[in-house]
């Protein structure tokens, strides 16, 4: 029931935005406070879900906090929600990031006005995201998966940068194409297996679905999720969308939306078509590794801060995909850890890029100039922290996902070609060096040196709202990085269950 409440709250909030402005919440600022309150309440519900979740339950216990109602009995559709250790961290991350976005918007609304619409759209977005992570019925999952697209499209096209129209079209058409393939793949499995229930399908470990169907289904679903993740070479919607989207859009896009792709791979594609996964895993690994190196190289020559962070996502999600491709518990753990770490760190980076753009009106590194540590020491320090976390320093969140993915690639699933994956490991590790290179290049360019460019004029100090939005991300990055056990203990059990172990 708790998840029903978690989705009902934003839904009510979004519906309340339909009430004409002269009846309810006349001023923009009161709308912003309203949005913050609603998302804050949702976050509280998420926290109570965290406390209600039994972390000590044996992994064989499966889903918790379930709700299972008949929805459309004629086609066996059920309204089935629930979480386990795989989805719970993502649900919490979604609620947290949405709340932080609203908190940030309190003082720094995106240019373009229409705050009522923005509030409603962000709340609908939250419903879709939470729903995707808690849905346990294939059609329900797909519905929520699609619910996310429209609000994000609207956010980009209404509050985006100068080239927003092309970016928004590309975003929605590209991801809709992926969704089509995804739906086809899911239905292929469901029709063959005769059920839409994800827990039941997962428990069968692919039994009852023929080898050929599994190969086809995994390819279809994999492509659909790979567009979202994004996997090289299906990534080109991402830099445009991230760059053009307003700050809150980029944060949610990078922080949670990308995770739907990798979560879907782990939650849907892998358990539904395990034999298909084994056939495609080396190819997935290959594309993931190409993504890591390619993303890093693309970042190295980027001139725009936001665009650089966007391409860095391609590299980081490459590590996540590599973890999944190994088909080992440690690899899946790496993917889930990487998901959360990337959600925390890249959101922070996009917040910072937004702050830079808001202060000096551009995110172009050459135009911004250098010496930010001198002119805006706090902003520059936090940017340094986030970059260091993103380049995978041990002790901060980014490291563990990468390290575990490499560990998984060193000894992949017994049926996979080991030499190939060891090569992947080597190349991916070199990609980590390139990751350090482009972040340090950016920091040197932006924060070091004598003051120059437009940033030589000191911008406004970091506001309370900005601190409020950033400090939780910093604290969590430190917590998860210093004590990875917090997250690994949650995910390890269900991951073992995914592979049929105890």
């Amino acid at each position, binding site marked *: 029931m708790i998840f029903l409440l978690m989705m009902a709250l934003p839904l009510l909030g979004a519906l309340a935005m339909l009430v004409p402005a002269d009846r309810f919440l006349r001023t923009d600022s009161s709308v912003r406070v309203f949005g913050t309150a609603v998302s804050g309440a949702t976050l509280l519900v998420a926290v109570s879900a965290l406390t209600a979740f039994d972390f000590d339950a044996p992994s064989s216990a499966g889903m918790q906090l379930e709700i299972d109602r008949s929805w459309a009995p004629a086609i066996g559709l059920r309204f089935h929600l629930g979480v386990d250790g795989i989805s719970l961290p993502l649900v919490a991350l979604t609620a947290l990031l949405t709340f932080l976005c609203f908190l940030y918007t309190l003082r720094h609304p995106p240019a373009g006005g229409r705050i009522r619409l923005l509030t409603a759209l962000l709340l609908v977005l939250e419903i879709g995201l939470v729903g995707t992570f808690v849905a346990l019925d294939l059609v329900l999952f797909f519905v929520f998966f699609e619910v996310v697209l429209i609000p994000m499209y609207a956010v980009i096209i209404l509050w985006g940068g100068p080239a927003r129209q092309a970016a928004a079209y590309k975003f929605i058409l590209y991801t809709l194409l992926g969704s089509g393939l995804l739906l086809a793949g899911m239905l292929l499995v469901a029709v063959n297996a005769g059920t839409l229930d994800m827990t039941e399908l997962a428990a069968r470990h692919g039994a009852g679905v023929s080898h050929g169907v599994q190969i086809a289904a995994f390819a279809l679903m994999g492509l659909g999720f790979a567009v979202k993740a994004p996997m090289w070479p299906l990534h080109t919607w991402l830099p445009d969308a991230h760059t053009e989207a307003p700050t809150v859009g980029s944060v949610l896009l990078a922080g949670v939306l990308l995770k739907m792709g990798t979560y879907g791979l782990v939650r849907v594609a892998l358990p539904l078509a395990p034999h298909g996964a084994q056939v495609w895993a080396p190819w997935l690994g290959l594309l993931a590794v190409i993504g890591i190196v390619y993303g890093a190289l693309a970042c190295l020559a*980027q001139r725009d801060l936001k665009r650089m962070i966007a391409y860095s996502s391609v590299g980081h999600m490459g590590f996540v995909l590599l973890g999944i491709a190994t088909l080992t518990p*440690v690899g899946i753990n790496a993917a889930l850890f990487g998901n959360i770490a990337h959600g925390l760190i890249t959101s922070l980076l996009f917040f910072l890029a937004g702050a830079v753009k808001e202060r000096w009106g551009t995110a172009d590194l050459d135009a911004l100039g250098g010496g930010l540590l001198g002119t805006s020491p706090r902003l520059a320090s936090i940017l340094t922290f986030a970059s260091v976390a993103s380049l995978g320093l*041990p002790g901060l969140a980014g490291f563990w996902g990468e390290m575990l993915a490499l560990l998984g690639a060193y000894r992949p699933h017994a049926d996979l070609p080991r030499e190939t994956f060891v090569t992947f*490991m080597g190349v991916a590790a070199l990609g980590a060096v390139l990751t350090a290179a482009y972040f*340090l*290049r950016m920091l040197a360019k932006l924060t070091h*040196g004598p003051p120059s460019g437009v940033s030589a004029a000191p911008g406004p100090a970091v506001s309370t709202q900005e601190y409020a939005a950033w400090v939780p991300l910093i604290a969590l990055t430190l917590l998860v990085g210093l004590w990875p056990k917090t997250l690994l203990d949650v995910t*390890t059990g269900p991951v073992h269950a995914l592979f049929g172990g105890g």
Partner: protein
Amino acid sequence: MIWLASLTVLLPFLAAFAGMLLGPGLTRLLGGRPGSPRNGPALIACVPIAVSLVFAAIVAFTVWRDPGQRNGELATIDTGSVPIHVGLQVDGLAAVVALMVCCVALAVQVYSVAYMREDGRYSSYAAFISMFTAAMLLVVYSGDLIVLYAGWEVMGICSYFLIGHHWEDRGNSRAAVKAFLVTRLGDVGFLIGILVLGVGANTFSIRGVLAEAGGLPHSTVTAAALLLLAGVAGKSAQFPLHTWLPDAMAGPTPISALIHAATMVAAGVYVVARLYGVFVLSSAALTVLGVVAVVSMVGSALAALAQDDLKRVLAYSTISQLGVMAAGLAVGADTAAIFHLLTHGAFKALLFLSAGCVIVVAGSNMLAHYGGLRRGMPVTFWSMTVGLAALVGVPPFSGWFSKDSVIEAAQHSALHGGESPIRPAPAGWFPAPFALPEVKSFPQLIRPPACANDVTAACLSRPDEARATMTASLGHAEFRTFRVDLPAGVAWLVYLGLLLTVALTAAYATRAWLMTFFGEPRGTYEIREAPRAMSWTVAVLAVPATILGFFGLGAEELRPHVGSALLGLLLAVLGAGAAFLVWNRDPAADPARALGRARPVFARAFYVDEVYAALVVRPFLALARGVVTFDSRRVDGAVVGAGRGARRLGGLLRVPQNGNPQTYLTGLLAGVVVIVAGVVIFR
């Protein structure tokens, strides 16, 4: 005891956060101002490390009294594969190195209070030193390879921040980036090496890995050892990953002392000693280590001869001395190598900090701006003289003992076809009941757990025999030969390289000494002693640099041997004499002129930087630009092209659907005609 060790690590770690966030506030609270004794950041920096030093001393003393390995585990992290054991492992080796780290870190912190008095960003600077110290202590005490790696990398990022402390200057910024990236390149190998070892042994705990190493396939061990060496070469600035270190001189001088004496560069050699049980199993790794060591020590000694900058002379000498340690490890003399690590830590910290005094007074790093400084700054002069004497290996200063023991071991190895020298039983590694009162000499304390498994197992399973072996070793009557399979040619190479390095070291040290303190003053500044917090720290550090060598007298393998000692001394006199004779002809000029046309080559350190720029940096940048073009033209072009294609296709299909009824009717009619015709014709 493990608790004390944990606190030793934790205190500087917490101090780093406290200093960064609360330091300036504490200053205001105490009513002081930056530079006064009531300086918040300085207090937060110095007090915890002083307490840590006391704890580290207690830990070292406990291990001294009661040798043995102590393990503590805080938690086990289940990764889904090989678990991570978050825990510490304290033995003699760790305890002694940690003690040295704390000593140097405290000296650096106290010295920095004065050296950085005018600096507006002192609080972040001191906090990063604290973090750096904590990371190094974590590396030293860690009982798990992944935890060790965490400390290892945190050290790297701290060095980045500290080298780039004066980031206003683009040069410093570049040096910091270079230091991090070059070491990170090595660290990638290091991490993979750890993964290879961990997966092979099915544990990341150092104890477990050492116990399992003997049973692993030879190829696995060799691969792991070689990969680990990449990280070691990066951190310990060995060829071919040494180029970051001379540039790292861009950082404030106390940082140079910290990085180049006690912490970062020591970590590489320390890790080899810590995992020596893995390295001795792979002769390929030892061969590579030996060759790398020789190239590093001779090449950088030559480079040091021609440097104009005092700090760069010291930087190249560090690479060279680390090469000496690596050479010791390659020929199987791990105790001697660690002994040299400790004495080098003492005298190199002394050298850098006294160089800092010289730089503060002269306002320049350039040797050409010094001259005749011995008259105005006697404390610095005598301290630096002690440091240089220890570096050259003048008896009875500390460096002489340690370098001699390495040379002796290399000589033995060369003369015995690559077989390693005498190795007494590792007394410091036995559990308490077997500890004898005599087990207080230095080498027993620092003896790393390098005994091969089978031997150890035998020792442990038969305590009587173990006691007998150990007693015998203490009585110098009987030694076990521990086979280190080094090709004879490499052993000779190492030996000759060491001898050549001795002569070169004497030459460049003498040159720097004469140019700085003798002759006529060449600068326009007033020659006076540096502030007390600096000169006193330097004077205090001169004590261990002098006497540390005598601690080695308790062990056979660290005792000076007449043959190698005389040979070494003769070579040192030759090198120093040559430098003096050249200098004496014209004290105002640089003796490096005698190098003639080789001088620019040495000064640029054989153009390694230029080679890297041409072969690595520029190709990668070009590749990156290529990727961006490829991404927008090809990958995205395909996507946009597909969109345009779809639209064009739509345009074609749209032509008949143009809303004109005449067209529709025409089409309809044409269709009817075609159908009718078809029916008529084909029926």
